[in-house]
């Protein structure tokens, strides 16, 4: 999300599923789309029918690979080397779309002369501070003008990156030096060239285990299928987002798509496939510690004391584009939440908002539970005992709580860990020693409530209530509304200042015709002013006269109509189908679609025509993602800011400089360019740099979180295999909505591991037998599936075996099927931008037979740790000491 945000200005998928049919080439990487989004995959098959080439780059041969034209097996955790190799191929062969790149990207911009690349510093960029394991990003900035002098703060710890979900990173665009010939050694294009010059096909082969010929085929396919006449789309999912360098994976594809001129064009773009029904929605209207609705950052303890301080921290007053109006969005949100208590005197209500002061993410919170800092925990349709990394830590953490509220459809393992979790079996926990008071409240299913999900293409779709929930079942909407009323009543007479926000928060929603409050909540989200409902965020004011619960969703209730509930049949519309649901922002389906036309506003080609300038307006099948009546020739006046400063050829309207970012001068904490680092746990050394892993990744040095040695470190050979976790078509995440259903459970009834025949032979594993998989955290058992679909790879001159582990099962007694949980194997190492765990790759051992029971299990794992010489510091050093690398 921050990656797309830092590259293009918004974190959402840039395109929509139906547009895949227009692609000439579809690269699916970090996604198993056919298995995880089967119905969306119909659009890939549609493209294939029309002659498109489908390429699947993935460690495993999956159901997606089965129907792809080419499957490229890749070592898990090495995608940046692969993507960098493609960038190198494009630049070395002058295969980029020159006119697009020059006009719409920051390729011509000059970077400061004190910037030093990872190529010069053996894997670090300039500005690295060892003590804080973070970067001072000042030297990454553009050269020239005002912003050159401005100091950039290191944003580490606060997940600032995520605040670019809709609004690019902060820079002052005035006076940036450029070189339109793109020859200046410090212009972005040349910086890029140097950075990736060593990412040759041979290096790709060595790092990724991909044969040179396979790699060449991919490069040639994407180049041949890009340009004026053709477009390529890149599809990714959590196969990319769950790494310690996740954000830079996505940046890699962003760079390729900008260089090839595929952004904003039909059949192009980057399709971020969110995993579940409303993952996109839950970041847009976040239940995330660091965000307020619409990607407005949560205020921080230091530096955000006043509204003006806060505002200065989230946007530059001189920046271009619609993020320039951020103050109107914040004030309207505070008006929606605190009504008349949100005035200029109360810093527009920010005085009522709690402050963050570091990482308060879910993994840090679990560690805080172990330290008895957290008393109460709500689990709302989430099963961390199975679905989160390091499940053991999750369960032990919950056993330290005073109270736990679980709201779900079924008695999931996170509700029953105190009774039948794995730690009960090992004797680490006993019910009579667990103080946690557990409330299980049954939830309403999707047909028992009304509301919106935001699916993967930023589309809000309303689902209507069909029946009343059974028994005590209740929607989270009703539960929290009622809980809020009870709390307001309890605090009504309080004079304690800490209770003031509860007293002030607006908390009254009328029932609609179905007796539901969802409609009223959606109206608040959409926003209103003195004239009634607003039509979109352009109507929002910074004077307190408008209120809006989520500025990017503003307009979802435009004209008094629930736009998300529109269901004009697809058959009665053109293929863009604008009258089905409502997409943020402003019901635009393809983002940055100004770029589908050339700088003069004409389609790049007849074949790829989409939006174009007709002399007065932008016209085409979509709503233009631009100022509607701004001509291509428009040039902003000197000193203009915000929307007025957007030139006629600035397609990236949320970016401070209006351009797509090949190089990110701001916004990402781990570097302006994707650079290959090894995963936190890897069997090999980094072949490109002395720096082994992401030098800014988030680590937790605690005895409960042992990490393993990597590469040539002593003890790394104790865990010689790579494993990756994933899901299957037949199940849903941690199983709460699938393992309780016989029809789904029977299709995949048992936890299994996938290994290659060669690996099975090496370790004596038998098909359909049992295997025990061991890491420094725990050991779990799985049935063995020996399959040629898993292939040993040749990496750095040796054979690397990979183990595949679907993560749907958990230990409990209420589900139809249960089993050990793959996520129990994982340690905690997080991406520094967004604090997402590295769960797509780690190292393990595998051995035949079932795992030991009881304390014998603990002894086995202890024996492994001791053999590998693991201490609290092992694998936790972010800066690789000099002289230890090859």
């Amino acid at each position, binding site marked *: 999300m921050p990656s797309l945000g830092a590259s293009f200005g918004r974190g959402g998928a840039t395109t929509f599923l139906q547009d895949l049919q227009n692609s000439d080439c579809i690269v699916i990487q970090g996604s198993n789309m056919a298995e995880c989004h089967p119905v969306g995959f119909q659009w890939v098959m549609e493209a294939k029918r029309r002659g498109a080439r489908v390429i699947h780059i993935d460690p495993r041969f999956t159901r997606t690979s089965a129907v792809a034209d080419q499957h490229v097996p890749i070592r898990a955790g090495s995608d940046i080397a692969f993507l960098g190799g493609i960038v190198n191929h494009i630049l070395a062969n002058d295969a980029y779309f020159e006119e697009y790149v020059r006009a719409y990207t920051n390729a011509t911009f000059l970077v400061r002369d004190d910037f030093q690349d990872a190529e010069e510093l053996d894997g670090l960029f300039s500005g690295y501070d060892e003590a804080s394991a973070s970067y001072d990003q000042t030297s990454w900035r553009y050269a020239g003008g005002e912003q050159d002098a401005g100091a950039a703060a290191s944003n580490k710890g606060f997940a600032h990156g995520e605040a670019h979900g809709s609004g690019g990173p902060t820079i002052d665009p005035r006076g940036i030096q450029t070189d339109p010939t793109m020859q200046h050694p410090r212009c972005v294009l040349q910086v890029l060239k140097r950075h990736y010059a060593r990412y040759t096909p041979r290096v790709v082969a060595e790092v990724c285990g991909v044969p040179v010929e396979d790699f060449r085929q991919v490069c040639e396919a994407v180049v041949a299928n890009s340009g004026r006449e053709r477009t390529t789309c890149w599809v990714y999912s959590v196969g990319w987002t769950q790494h310690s360098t996740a954000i830079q994976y996505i940046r890699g594809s962003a760079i390729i798509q900008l260089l090839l001129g595929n952004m904003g064009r039909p059949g192009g773009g980057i399709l971020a496939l969110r995993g579940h029904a409303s993952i996109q929605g839950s970041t847009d209207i976040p239940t995330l510690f660091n965000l307020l609705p619409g990607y407005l950052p949560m205020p921080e303890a230091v530096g955000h004391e006043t509204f003006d301080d806060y505002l200065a921290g989230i946007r530059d007053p001189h920046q271009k584009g619609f993020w320039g109006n951020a103050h109107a969005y914040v004030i309207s949100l505070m008006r929606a939440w605190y009504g008349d208590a949100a005035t200029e005197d109360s810093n527009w209500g920010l005085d009522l908002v709690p402050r963050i002061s570091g990482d308060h993410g879910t993994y840090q919170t679990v560690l805080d539970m172990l330290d008895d800092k957290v008393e109460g925990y709500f689990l*709302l349709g989430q099963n961390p005992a199975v679905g989160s990394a390091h499940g053991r830590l999750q369960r032990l953490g919950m056993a330290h709580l005073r109270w736990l509220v679980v709201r779900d459809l079924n008695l999931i393992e996170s509700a029953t860990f105190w009774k039948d979790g794995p730690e009960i079996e090992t004797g680490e926990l006993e019910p009579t020693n667990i103080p946690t008071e557990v409330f299980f409240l049954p939830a309403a299913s999707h047909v028992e409530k009304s509301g919106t999900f935001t699916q993967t293409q930023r589309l809000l779709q309303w689902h209507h209530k069909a029946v009343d929930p059974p028994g005590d079942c209740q929607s989270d909407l009703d539960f929290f509304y009622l809980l809020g009323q009870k709390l307001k009543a309890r605090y009504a007479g309080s004079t304690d200042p800490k209770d003031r926000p509860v007293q002030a928060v607006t908390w009254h929603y009328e029932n609609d015709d179905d007796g539901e409050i969802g409609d009223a909540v959606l109206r608040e989200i959409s926003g209103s002013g003195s004239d009634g409902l607003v039509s979109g965020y352009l109507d929002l004011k910074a004077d307190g006269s408008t209120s809006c619960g989520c500025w990017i969703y503003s307009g979802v209730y435009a004209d008094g109509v629930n736009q998300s509930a529109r269901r004009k049949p697809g058959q009665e519309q053109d293929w863009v189908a604008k009258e089905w649901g409502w997409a943020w922002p402003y019901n635009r389906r393809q983002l940055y679609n100004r770029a589908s036309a050339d700088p003069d506003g004409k389609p790049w080609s007849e074949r790829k025509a989409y939006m174009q300038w007709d002399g007065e307006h932008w016209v085409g099948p979509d709503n233009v993602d631009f100022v509607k009546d701004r001509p291509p020739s428009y040039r902003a006046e000197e000193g203009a800011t915000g929307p007025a400063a957007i030139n006629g050829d600035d397609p990236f309207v949320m970016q401070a400089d209006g351009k797509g970012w090949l190089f990110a001068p701001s916004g990402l904490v781990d570097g302006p360019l994707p650079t290959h680092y090894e995963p936190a746990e890897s069997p090999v050394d980094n072949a490109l740099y002395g720096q082994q892993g992401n030098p800014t990744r988030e680590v937790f040095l605690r005895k409960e979180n042992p990490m393993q040695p990597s590469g040539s470190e002593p003890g790394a050979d104790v865990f010689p295999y790579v494993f990756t976790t994933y899901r299957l078509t037949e199940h849903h995440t941690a199983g709460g909505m699938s393992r309780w259903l016989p029809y789904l459970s029977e299709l995949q009834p048992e936890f299994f591991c996938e290994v290659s025949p060669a690996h099975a032979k090496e370790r004596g594993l038998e098909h359909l037998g049992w295997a025990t998989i061991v890491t420094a955290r725990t050991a779990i058992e799985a049935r063995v599936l020996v399959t040629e679909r898993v292939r040993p790879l040749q990496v750095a001159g040796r054979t690397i075996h990979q183990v595949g582990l679907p993560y749907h099962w958990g230990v409990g007694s209420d589900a139809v099927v249960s089993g050990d949980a793959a996520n129990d194997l994982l340690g905690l190492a997080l991406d520094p931008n967004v604090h997402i765990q590295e769960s797509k790759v780690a190292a393990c051992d595998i051995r035949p037979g079932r795992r030991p029971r009881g304390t014998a299990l603990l002894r086995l794992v202890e024996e492994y740790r001791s053999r590998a010489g693991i201490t609290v510091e092992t694998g936790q050093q972010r800066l690789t000491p000099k002289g230890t690398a090859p």
Partner: protein
Amino acid sequence: MSLGQTFLGWPVLRQLTGTDPSGRGPAAQSARTAGLRARTETADRVVDSICPYCAVGCGQKVYVKDERVTQIEGDPNSPISRGRLCPKGSASEQLVNSPRRTTTVRYRRPYGTEWEDLDLETATDMIADRIVQTRERTWQDIDAQGHPLRRTLGIASLGGATLDNEENYLIKKLFTALGAVQIENQARI
């Protein structure tokens, strides 16, 4: 019903008197079979919904008879899914009507070994009380340098990916007013 009418319905007689002398077609069709109709056609109402599983957001039609969901299938009108559903989406009816679903409040007291029954209203009141007590015990007004915090780190939340936007909105709004900041979601995972 006369004896003759009954008898004439006998397959074997229909076989010999009708167009189906081999007795494999209409003559063999039972009255029950002849009366079979799609249950979706007799639903009391059909409600538009969206699949709760993955992020494709397939359109669903929910068929309701006698206040019970009798079938959930793809909505052909959706321009995204065009009426299709994957195995999970196709299992939605079982998700809703599953006999394994827990539909009453379960309560486990501290150090308890078994679940107990609890009234929903009582449970909600108890949870409100826990929140009040935890805020009292864990409130942080300022940090060591005097910067404002106005928060509690004593209450955390982790939401799933099937929460509606409206639900996430109220959750974030309420917890923020309470000063709880560790409000997280599957989106982080």
